[in-house]
C-alpha cells in the first residue's frame, strides 16, 4: 500500500533581501517517489543537498513550487478540516534539535500528550496511560513524564521527542537527522525499538541522515540526493555500494571499524 506519492516536485527559495540582488535558488528538481507502508527508507545526501526541504514538503509544511505530494489521492498542501487532521495523525516528523522541540515551561508528559489533546478523542486518564506506554516504549519511565525538558539529558529528550511523534500511531514517521546527535549506544537502542515498531504495526520510516552505517542497519531502500535530484534509488543489501560520485564520497568518509595505524610505541621508538 502506498502512503505518500511524490509527483514530480520541484522547489526553491528566493535569495537576497533588501540590499542584495534577488534571485531564485533551486533546491529540489524533478523528484518522483513513493513511500509504502512498513518500509523504512534512508535518505542520504551531503549538507545542502535538499534533504530537509524534501522532508518539509512531504509533511505539507510548505507547498512545492512545482508538482505535488499526495496522501490518499489528495494534495497534502491543500488539505483542510477532517482530512488535514487525518493526515497530521498519519504522518509525523522528528527534527534533530530536541531541546528546541519542547516547551521549556511544560512537563515532558504534557508535551507528549499535545497531539493526543488535539487529534484524538482520548480523555485525560486515557491520555496519561498512553503517555506512559509511549515513554516505556522508548525506554523512559513514569518519572520522566513529570520533568521539565531541561531536566533530561539530550538523549532522553530526543527519545521523548520520538515518543511524541509516535503518540497517534502514525503510518509514516520522518526522522530528519533525529539520531545524529546521539551516541552510538543510544542510536542502536532507538533503531532497535523503531524496528520492532515497524514489524509489529507496519509503521513506515524515512531516515534522513548522512551516516551510511545507520542506513545499512535500519533501511530496506536508500535514496541518494545530490543538488536537489534523486541520483540513486536502490535496495539496501549486504554490500551496499553506490555508482554516483556523492555516494562514493559518503562511503569513503565512513570511519574505520578497527584501528589501522601502526602501534604508537613502534612509531615512536622504532
Amino acid at each position: 500500500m502506498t502512503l505518500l506519492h511524490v509527483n514530480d516536485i520541484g522547489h526553491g527559495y528566493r535569495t537576497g533581501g533588501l540590499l542584495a540582488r534577488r534571485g531564485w535558488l533551486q533546491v529540489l528538481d524533478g523528484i518522483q517517489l513513493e513511500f509504502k507502508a512498513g518500509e523504512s527508507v534512508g535518505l542520504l545526501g551531503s549538507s545542502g543537498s535538499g534533504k530537509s526541504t524534501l522532508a518539509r514538503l512531504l509533511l505539507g509544511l510548505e507547498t512545492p513550487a512545482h508538482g505535488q505530494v499526495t496522501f490518499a489521492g489528495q494534495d497534502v498542501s491543500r488539505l483542510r478540516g477532517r482530512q488535514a487532521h487525518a493526515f497530521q495523525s498519519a504522518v509525523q516528523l522528528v527534527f534533530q534539535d530536541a531541546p528546541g522541540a519542547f516547551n521549556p515551561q511544560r512537563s515532558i508528559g504534557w508535551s507528549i500528550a499535545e497531539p493526543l489533546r488535539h487529534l484524538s478523542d482520548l480523555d485525560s486518564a486515557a491520555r496519561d496511560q498512553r503517555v506512559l506506554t509511549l515513554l516505556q516504549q522508548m525506554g523512559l519511565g513514569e518519572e520522566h513524564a513529570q520533568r521539565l525538558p531541561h531536566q533530561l539529558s539530550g538523549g532522553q529528550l530526543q527519545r521523548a521527542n520520538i515518543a511524541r511523534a509516535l503518540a497517534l500511531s502514525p503510518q509514516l514517521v520522518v526522522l530528519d537527522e533525529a539520531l545524529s546527535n546521539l551516541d552510538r549506544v543510544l542510536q542502536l537502542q532507538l533503531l532497535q525499538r523503531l524496528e520492532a515498531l515497524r514489524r509489529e504495526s507496519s509503521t513506515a520510516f524515512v531516515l534522513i541522515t548522512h551516516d551510511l552505517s545507520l542506513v545499512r542497519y535500519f533501511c530496506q531502500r536508500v535514496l541518494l540526493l545530490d543538488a536537489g535530484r534523486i541520483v540513486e534509488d536502490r535496495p539496501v543489501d549486504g554490500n551496499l555500494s553506490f555508482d554516483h560520485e556523492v555516494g562514493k564520497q559518503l562511503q569513503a568518509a565512513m570511519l574505520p571499524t578497527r584501528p589501522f595505524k601502526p602501534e604508537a610505541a613502534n612509531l615512536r621508538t622504532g
Partner: protein
Amino acid sequence: MEHSTLELQGLRIEGRAGALVEDVDLQLRRGQVCALVGSSGSGKSLTCLGSLDLLPAGLTRTHGQLLLDGQALPAAQVRGRVASLVLQNPRSAFNPVRNMASHAQETLKLRGIGGTAARARMAQCLEAVGLVDRERVLQAFAFQLSGGMLQRMMIALALMAQTPFLLADEPTSDLDALSQARFLDLLMELVQQHGLGVLLVTHDMGVVARCADHVAVMDAGRIVERQTVHGLFERPASTASRTLLDAHQILAGSTP
C-alpha cells in the same frame, strides 16, 4: 618542538551534589592523539573544560594541576599559549558581531603579531585548514558560515596561536560525514607533520579507530580503563568500553 608532554594530574571537579570528576590523570605527548571516551554524562567534557579552568558557574576544580614537561603551570598560562581548545558547537564559540578577521587579529595580537605579518599568518593558517575562499571567510560573520567551515576556522585560530597541544571536545559530532572525514584528515596531518599533541574527547569509536594512539575510558567521572587503541579494540577490559565497542561494531557492520 620545545615542549614534549602535557600532563593533567589528579583532577577533581565538584558541584553542589558532590564530586562529578575524580582522580583523573591524563598525559598528552606531541605527535600523538589521546582519546578520552565514555557515554554521555560520564564527565568527558567537564574534564576538558576543568583542566583549563573554564568550568561553568556552580562547578569548581578542587584538585588537579597541569604539568608541562614535569613543571607545574597554572591553567591561565596554559590556555591559548600551550594548549588551544576546540569545542563541539563552533557556532557558540564565536562572537556574533565580529567577523572572522577580527577573531584572528585578536589571537595574533596576543602573540605580538600585527600588520602584514598577521595577514600572512592568517592566509597561511586558513590555507592549512582548507578554507580556500579566504577573503570571503575572513569578512564573514559566524552566521554566514556553515558548521564545517566554522569548525575549520576554530582549528585555524588554534594554529595561529601556535600552541603545541590541542584539546578537542567532540569536534566532529555536529558535522556531516564528509566534513567529519575532512576534519579528521586535517587533524591527523597536523599531528603527524607538525607534531601537535591532541586530547580528543569523543563517544564515537570510529573516530577513535581513525585517530587515536592511546585511549582513556571514562565512566561516572573516573577513568576506568587505559589502553593503546589496538589493545582496547582487541581486549576491552571495562563494561563502559565494551558497551561502546559493541554498539560501534554492530552499526559499522563489523566487516573485518
